[in-house]
């Protein structure tokens, strides 16, 4: 994490800490986390549940105010008060959008696709008539791979599959022309076979529209697939234990926790799975008998 000037970076988290007060006392959900995401870049935030990654995502999106630390967008802090800051916050609000984990909960069940997608267009005066809205919505649907668009306009969420709903959620995020999309476990509730499809679509969007992505996931294989050209940050107990270019970190993990995570990923390859298992058993046996592992 080199110390570069803030220009060129869209989003910056600077020594963020989030403390929750629960019945069992203080919980440090996020502990001194710093991240930087440049324009059009990909950053994967990997960790297990309880690692603080979702809380970090909420702070990055401005939905949660951190206990300590600063969140900067285009060099300006979004946490400060005052009239100038309010205007900047509004800009930030449009520039950073969110795709949620649960495709069943992220769309309003009482609204059809056209309604869901045209609402932000009309609200922010990005279209001036109903027909223009239809055009723009059709364009968005094509961008997220839902074709032919006309068939989707009158559909309600319950008439679509999980994968289709996630694409609608992405289209909704795109309506306000964001600079950054935070995908919070956006693939975790989808079948494995369609996760790749969704991530490919997001990669296309990144290349065509220059949208950056903060991808939160517990799945290292997904992180490697989506974040090939970007960075990865591994979180554990609220802290970042490893940070660097994705391919490098995965090929040469430095931290023990990262190593454990990599080791834990199941392999869709029977022979390889068997070899790895035998190695694990040998290591455990060696450990137990006090002999250093081969």
């Amino acid at each position: 994490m080199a110390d570069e000037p803030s220009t060129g970076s869209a989003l910056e988290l600077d020594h963020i800490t989030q403390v929750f007060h629960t019945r069992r006392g203080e919980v440090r959900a996020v502990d001194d986390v710093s991240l930087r995401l440049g324009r059009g870049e990909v950053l994967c935030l990997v960790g297990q549940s309880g690692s603080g990654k979702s809380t970090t995502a909420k702070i990055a999106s401005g939905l949660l105010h951190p206990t300590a630390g600063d969140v900067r967008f285009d060099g300006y802090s979004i946490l400060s008060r005052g009239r100038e800051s309010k205007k900047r916050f509004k800009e930030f609000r449009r520039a950073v959008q969110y795709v949620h984990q649960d495709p069943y909960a992220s769309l309003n069940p009482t609204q059809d696709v056209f309604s869901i997608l045209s609402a932000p267009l009309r609200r922010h005066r990005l279209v001036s008539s109903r027909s223009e809205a239809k055009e723009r919505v059709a364009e968005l649907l094509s961008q997220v791979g839902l074709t032919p668009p006309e068939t989707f306009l009158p559909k309600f969420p319950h008439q679509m599959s999980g994968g289709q709903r996630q694409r609608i959620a992405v289209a909704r995020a795109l309506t306000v022309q964001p600079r950054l999309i935070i995908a919070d476990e956006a693939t975790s509730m989808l079948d494995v076979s369609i996760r790749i499809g969704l991530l490919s679509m997001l990669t296309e969007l990144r290349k065509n529209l220059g949208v950056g992505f903060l991808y939160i996931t517990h799945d290292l294989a997904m992180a490697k697939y989506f974040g090939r050209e970007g960075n990865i940050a591994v979180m554990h107990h609220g802290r970042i234990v490893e940070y660097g270019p994705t391919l490098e970190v995965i090929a040469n993990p430095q931290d023990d926790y990262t190593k454990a995570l990599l080791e834990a990923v199941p392999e869709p390859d029977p022979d390889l799975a068997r070899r790895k298992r035998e190695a694990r058993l040998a290591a455990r046996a060696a450990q137990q008998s006090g002999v250093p592992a081969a």
Partner: protein
Amino acid sequence: MDDRKQPSGAPEPVLSVRDLVVEYRTGQRPSDPVHRAVDGVSFDLYPGESIALIGESGCGKTTLGLALLRLLPRLGRIASGSITYRKRDGSTVDVLALNESRLRQFRWSEAAMVFQGAMNSFNPVLRIWDQMLDTIRAHDRSMSKKEAWERSAEVLREVELEPERVLKSYPHELSGGMRQRVLIAMSMLLRPQMLILDEPTTALDILTQRAIVDLIHDLHDRLDFAMIFVSHDLAVAAELATRVATMYDGKIVEMGDVRDIFYRPQHEYTRSLINAVPTVTEDRKEVPSHG
């Protein structure tokens, strides 16, 4: 391509399923349409085997698992086909012909199931010991309380949990991984010959997932049971299965030895499923596909 049966000379199958059809009614009224969740499935399960049922959501794999123990919900029914089970003493049982009380005896002592997401469906006000005792009592009234306690402790030790601590705990006092281990232990209480596991690792952290997968593999190696497990995650199938069946739209489209399926898939659908799984390890063999 009849890899559903092993070559002759092999032992008799524990389970034989022939042309099984399972339907779901979509509504209460007779005029409501019927959906075929399982559409003519046939296969054999041999002693000591581990068969993975893979496929996307909605392909019928969970329904098939439930049907084998006749655990379908109200709106589901087995429309046709046969399920024949062979007990350890060699006698065969027509599972579809069992009456309620025999079915209850059959379940858990001959074949048991670990349900999807069940680790969140424990009764929150009962201790683990109570739930284990309930399970035993529901299917085998001949065990005394003392024997039940000993058996419960035994199975908990097999899943690497401390019996003294766990039996006295309430479900919320245990982590997700521990609860899943308890469920696996509970399924083994009456030493069934066949275990069905539905998505045993979904909703678990990757580290816990690894532990559970290794545990299931270890149990399957050491103890004497045949296993069918349902998974949408091909990687888990590769780790645990000896044979794999790919399901699509209620039918088995391909079935074979795990290495054949993963290295030489014949069916287009199987190929696309395998190619859709990303991996962290670089030296994984690429699956050849026809242009």
